[in-house]
């Protein structure tokens, strides 16, 4: 956990007071909506179809049990008893009243949570690997660097009015769980041949209307220079990014139009010109931030405790353990993913009661710490293996032990037309129907790892481009239709999926996905060949033929 200092607490509390005054002036008519809109957006407040939506940041996906209880309280007191975890380590409340928002923000400020820069054309929540600090083989905890960037870019005047929103993700593992290649800036922490810690810097990735995989702009930037280098990128973007056309305003368009070589030269020139502007990170500064992260006092525990051996006889426990429990860097401990994808429920939703219960379980079994991943699941990062059977039973009682992590029903979905004012089509009902179609866990395990991502419009909040199967909702003559892509992936081998053919109507989507999965099962060359690998080997044609031959 990261302990906020007095400066952070003052900043958050001042922001609540400011926003309280702004809301008061808006409700009295002193501020028009045009004047107020930018102010509310900078505090994570959108207007959606039915109500205001309130987006709260969970920096690098780390929450304490106390913070999770505060989120539960906001859901219960100001909303309808639930919240929605997003693909960028945020939580959204869908039914909040503007008049009550300052109180909700004040409640969150008490536990060091805020909504600053969760919207608007500024630096958004700096995200990271949900296994940060506990993943085996990790170079070091990437959250230290996320926190340094968070501090530097929060309310930074130069970056508060960028051409468009800006998203950074950081990973320090070989396997990328933070989707860094589809961010405006992706940072991969590693040690070079000299043993120095630094970053491969990628730029210009992103999804939405014009998707791009990020390109490497610098193979190695020393850790001490990362702040100044990121600042140089932002300065070039600030200067040349398109402000005249919202669809061309993201940095990915600038990088694409200039070409990565020219863009890199511009950044290098800026970086040199900046000289020493006090952004070189002194060792003591890095260590100061590092020291504010606390880590559990792990016990010395056996690799295979008796409790686990006994529980292994229970096939239901074993099924859950196989796909929800992951290796930890410390012997005797595990990382446990809590699926927020029960059959028939909206992906990523959790009730306030579930949040409270998870907070209690985190206190009992995970040193009071919870993580949020971009796949819209939660995670307990420090669970002793001996406690796994008890934890499983407790999770099952609150509906959070669905054994489907990384399987076909572990679907990423945006809120879609049920909530979102930008959407053209619904996402959640498609996800719900698919979870019912593939509800049989034996079938899901037989299929193996398969990520389905669903977006209700081209803005791609459901990351459909990088789903193994991507589903994009479009509107045709007033009806909901869906384009299907296959072969996308968001990890270290990130790539965009390929469109298989014409869009299909709402009622046929689940049938089509079943057809694609059946084709895969028939075509894979061995059970271990993942869907995405089979698509790579075979191309889209066999799947396309299966889907459209009879339609």
């Amino acid at each position, binding site marked *: 956990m990261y302990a906020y200092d007095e400066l952070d607490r003052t900043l958050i509390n001042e922001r609540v007071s400011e926003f309280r005054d702004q809301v008061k002036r808006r409700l*009295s008519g002193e501020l028009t909506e045009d004047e107020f809109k930018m102010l509310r957006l900078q505090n994570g407040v959108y207007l959606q*179809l039915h109500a205001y939506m309130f987006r709260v940041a969970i920096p690098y996906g780390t929450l304490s049990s106390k913070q999770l209880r505060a989120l539960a309280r906001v859901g219960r007191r100001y909303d309808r008893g639930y919240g929605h975890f997003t693909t960028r380590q945020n939580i959204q409340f869908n*039914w909040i009243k503007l008049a009550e928002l300052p109180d909700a923000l004040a409640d969150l400020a008490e536990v060091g949570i805020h909504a600053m820069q969760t919207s608007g054309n500024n630096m958004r929540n700096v995200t990271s690997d949900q296994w940060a600090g506990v993943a085996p083989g990790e170079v070091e905890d990437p959250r230290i660097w996320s926190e340094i960037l968070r501090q530097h870019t929060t309310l930074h005047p130069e970056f508060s009015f960028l051409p468009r929103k800006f998203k950074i993700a950081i990973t320090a593992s070989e396997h990328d769980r933070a989707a860094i290649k589809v961010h405006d800036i992706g940072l991969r922490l590693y040690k070079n041949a000299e043993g120095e810690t630094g970053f491969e810097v990628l730029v210009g990735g992103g999804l939405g209307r014009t998707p791009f995989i990020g390109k490497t702009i610098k193979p190695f930037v020393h850790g001490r220079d990362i702040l100044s280098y990121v600042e140089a990128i932002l300065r070039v973007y600030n200067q040349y990014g398109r402000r005249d056309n919202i669809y061309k305003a993201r940095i990915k368009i600038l990088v694409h139009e200039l070409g990565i070589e020219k863009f890199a030269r511009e950044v290098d020139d800026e970086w040199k010109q900046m000289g020493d502007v006090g952004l070189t990170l002194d060792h003591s500064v890095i260590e100061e931030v590092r020291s504010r992260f606390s880590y559990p006092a792990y016990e010395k525990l056996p690799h295979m405790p008796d409790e686990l051996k006994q529980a292994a006889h229970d096939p239901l426990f074993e099924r859950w353990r196989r796909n929800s429990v992951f290796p930890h860097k410390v012997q005797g401990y595990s990382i446990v993913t809590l699926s927020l994808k029960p059959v028939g*429920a*909206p992906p990523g939703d959790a009730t306030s009661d*579930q949040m409270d219960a998870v907070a209690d379980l985190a206190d009992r079994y995970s040193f009071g710490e919870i993580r949020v991943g971009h796949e819209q699941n939660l995670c307990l990062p420090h669970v002793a293996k001996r406690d796994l059977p008890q934890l499983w039973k407790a999770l099952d009682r609150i509906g959070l032990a669905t054994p489907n992590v990384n399987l076909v029903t572990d679907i990423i979905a945006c809120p879609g037309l049920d909530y979102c004012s930008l959407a053209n089509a*619904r996402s959640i009902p498609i996800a719900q129907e698919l979870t019912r179609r593939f509800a049989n866990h034996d079938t899901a395990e037989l299929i193996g790892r398969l990520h389905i991502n669903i977006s209700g419009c081209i803005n791609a909040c459901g990351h459909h481009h990088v789903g193994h199967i991507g589903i994009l909702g479009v509107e045709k003559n007033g009806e909901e239709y869906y384009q299907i892509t296959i072969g996308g992936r968001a990890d270290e081998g990130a790539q965009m999926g390929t469109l298989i053919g014409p869009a299909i109507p709402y009622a046929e989507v689940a049938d089509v996905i079943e057809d694609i999965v059946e084709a895969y099962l028939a075509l894979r060359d061995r059970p271990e060949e993942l869907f995405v690998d089979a698509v790579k080997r075979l191309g889209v044609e066999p799947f396309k033929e299966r889907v459209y031959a009879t339609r």
Partner: protein
Amino acid sequence: MVTANRTWDGVVIYRTAQQGWSANLSDAVIVRTSDEARTLLGEATADDVGAIGPYIAPVELKDGGEIKPGNLREHIRSEGLTIDLLPVPA
């Protein structure tokens, strides 16, 4: 009709014939020409304190004068979510 969201709580509202707002679609004033629609939108937009984001939306008039939303988006705004939520204790 012209619809918007109520400023203080965001609830979906409809412009009425009395130059006010109602949360019931059945209270909405229905206009039939683009000139009428523009005039209605102008009035609605002038009420910047009470409503946010007014716009013209289609309706379907059933036999007997019942007003129904004219597209899926407005149906969802009027009738609510089309999905099953996790059960939340009352």
